[in-house]
């Protein structure tokens, strides 16, 4: 009788221990256990928002929990990023958006209180086709031609749709010794209007020229590696403009301190999303190719991009606003 009792007690103890061990292991990968939130720093209806919503549905399928999209526009994603910085490390909320909001903006705007170190990165999914463009019928087809044109004419007019666009051109202009008139535009559409109506010689674009084939030509890629849409177009770096590259993938980020297991799970889900037909459909529609980066590569990109931008700002004597 005593044996049976001992056996029974042992069995109970082992089951209990087994259960506790199992639940401890489950705590690592059980996220998410309730609906999570995707934070987007732009208004609803924009390019990033559209992609984000498609992605949220795929992630919901992969992670097994609903993914709610919340738009918190303002200040070029600054409002979203600042509010999200301290929102908790349990994986409830993650950020999806253009990485330049994290790598570039805090370095040009002293009012922003966050830096790239405040977040951990689960991966990157697509890439803005950041490039230098010109009206189709201009007599130059590459940067060398443009510089020659600028020197002959005494200066060129350049449409700059963001502070980053202006800074890059300032660096190039300084290196080549050419005069540039900077025409500010309101976003990509404003830039397109300027280019299509032939009022500027040159412009920075986030990739929107793909919607106007035959009207706008791409002279150079601003990213550090050649662009998916323009594999034959050299990068600024290749052309000898060192230190002006700016990469603009869209990343998924969590606040610093979020559990590594959560990051890993999101990374896997993003990988699946990058191969999902729905994702391909939307990226073909807005002509932004899928460029998947895993967590490690995404983090490396953020760090190197931030450093490169810091160097560029020093090179143009940028005064932080």
């Amino acid at each position, binding site marked *: 009788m005593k044996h049976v009792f001992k056996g029974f007690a042992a069995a109970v103890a082992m089951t209990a221990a087994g259960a506790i061990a199992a639940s401890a292991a489950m705590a690592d990968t059980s996220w998410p256990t309730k609906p999570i939130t995707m934070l987007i720093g732009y*208004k*609803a*209806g*924009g390019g990033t928002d559209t992609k984000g919503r498609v992605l949220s549905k795929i992630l919901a399928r992969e992670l097994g929990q609903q993914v709610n999209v919340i738009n*918190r*526009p*303002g*200040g*070029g994603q*600054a*409002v979203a990023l*600042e509010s999200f910085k301290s929102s908790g490390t349990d994986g409830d909320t993650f950020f999806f958006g253009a990485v330049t909001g994290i790598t570039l*903006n805090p370095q*040009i*705007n002293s*009012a922003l209180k966050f830096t790239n170190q405040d977040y951990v990165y689960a991966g990157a999914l697509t890439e803005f086709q950041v490039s230098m463009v010109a009206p189709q019928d201009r007599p130059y087809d590459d940067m060398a031609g443009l510089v020659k044109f600028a020197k002959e004419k005494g200066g060129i*007019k350049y449409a*700059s749709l*963001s*502070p980053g666009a*202006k800074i890059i051109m300032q660096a190039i202009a300084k290196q080549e010794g050419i005069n540039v*008139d*900077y*025409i*500010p*535009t*309101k976003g990509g*559409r*404003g830039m397109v*209007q*300027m280019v299509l*109506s032939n*009022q500027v010689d040159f412009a920075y674009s986030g990739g929107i020229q793909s919607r106007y084939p035959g009207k706008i030509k791409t002279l150079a890629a601003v990213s550090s590696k050649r662009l998916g849409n323009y594999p034959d177009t050299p990068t600024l770096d290749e052309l000898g403009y060192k230190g002006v590259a700016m990469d603009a993938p869209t990343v998924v980020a969590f606040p610093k301190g979020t559990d590594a297991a959560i990051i890993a799970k999101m990374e896997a889900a993003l990988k699946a999303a990058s191969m999902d037909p729905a994702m391909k459909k939307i990226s073909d529609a807005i002509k932004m190719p899928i460029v998947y980066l895993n967590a490690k590569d995404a983090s490396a990109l953020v760090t190197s991009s931030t450093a490169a931008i810091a160097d560029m700002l020093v090179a143009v004597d940028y005064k932080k*606003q």
Partner: protein
Amino acid sequence: MLDELYSVAGSAFAVGNLAWILFGVTLGYLVGALPGLGKGTATAVAIPLTFYLEPLSAIAFLVGISKGSTAGSAVSAILLNTPGEPSSTPTAMAGYPLARAGKAQKALKMGLFASVLGDLFSTVVLILVAQELAEYALGIGPVELTAILAFSMVFIAGLSGRSMIKGLIAGLFGILISCMGLEIETGSPRLTFGLIELYDGLPLIPVAIGMLALSEMMIQIGQRQRLADEADLLKGSSKREDQIVTLADWKNCIRPIVRGSLIGTVVGILPGLGASVGSFLSYGAERRASGRGADFEESGAIEGVAAAESADNAVVPASLVPLFAIGIPGSVIAAILIGAFTIQGITPGPLLFLENKDLILGVYVSMLAASVMLLFIGYFGQNMFARIVRISPALIMPIVVFLCCIGAYLQGGGTFGIGVMIVFGIIGFFSKKYDFSFVTFLIGFVIGPSFELSLRQSLGLVTDLPELLDHPVAIVFAVLAVVGVWRLTVLQRKQMAEMAKAETN
């Protein structure tokens, strides 16, 4: 054009869309009939709630409110001698005596018919003209745009109040407030007081709700209007001909309706004038043409009602022409509608016809449908509206204020939006008290960013003074703007002098 409209008829006539148009027109008619609430208030409050709608339904709904409200304001004007909106003041002047003579139903019906006819005419003009104008407007570059915007501001400032100087102050103040936010070239914060919420500038919807709706509520509460406690004027005369619109009435009214529709449409297209200018001009013209003069107000005149109502309704669709074609709001409603478009991710302007052609065509068809619905709602709902007109403002105002808060919260980024709304409610209250045209302020606020951007672009594009001669259109408008300031100031001084002389006589 007809086959284009036909192709979008499918989506425009979808049950859901029609339901929203119906709801908008009915709501607008109701709001118009209630004294103290106007289409500006209703539209500003309704916009945040359209966020979840399809773009077509959202725009159609909001425009439906404007149409319904301008027509419904005749109800309280005729029955209670209290215009539901300022533009129905002539209707009250000529219609209330008719009601006292037992001819209320006749007056209400003619008012409705005139409203619908004026509205239909103007909608057709909008459909025909806007796209033509937009194609021309595509050739407008920053230099021309700067000049046109400056001219619009001057025009609006001069005609929105009794004082050109005050109007310009209000407009420039609006432009100043619109500068708040991150500067476009370098991203440096301007007037943001360290608040991240202001990085994109003050949100339009809470500002509009505050200035239009909240301030109006504050004024109403202060005035505590007493509605005329007349006996049930609807059951006036027992004579049938006093209850319907006879052939003789139509004969008398066809001329004022045609004239009113034309006047209203032109007034609508020109930026800054507004429905009241349209209705007064038309009323005055009819008064003079009939030769009866002051008798219009003594014994009432159905022709006066027809003239006023057709004109003020014709202003509404026509005021969308500059908005759709160029992206410049010429009226308060147009300025607020920009907010509605923005929520849906659409920018009004010449590109609208290239990028969102189907949407605009759908809006056109919906507007035509709204005109027809207006007729039915006004006709069959007359008894009901006559009764509703008497609801105590004490019941309505708290509901409106509550809706204001919801809208400001949704579109202003939470409680920050409510704060903005309150601040601008107070500013709106004082500007109404001291006759600083809040219309000009709001329009200045809305076009401020465009004005600044196009001015800076012009400075970059036109590097030498002789280059300016390449832009003749811009020079013309710039000259017109300067001349406008001078002429309108002189005109106003003359008017003030005449008024002073009349008072001393």
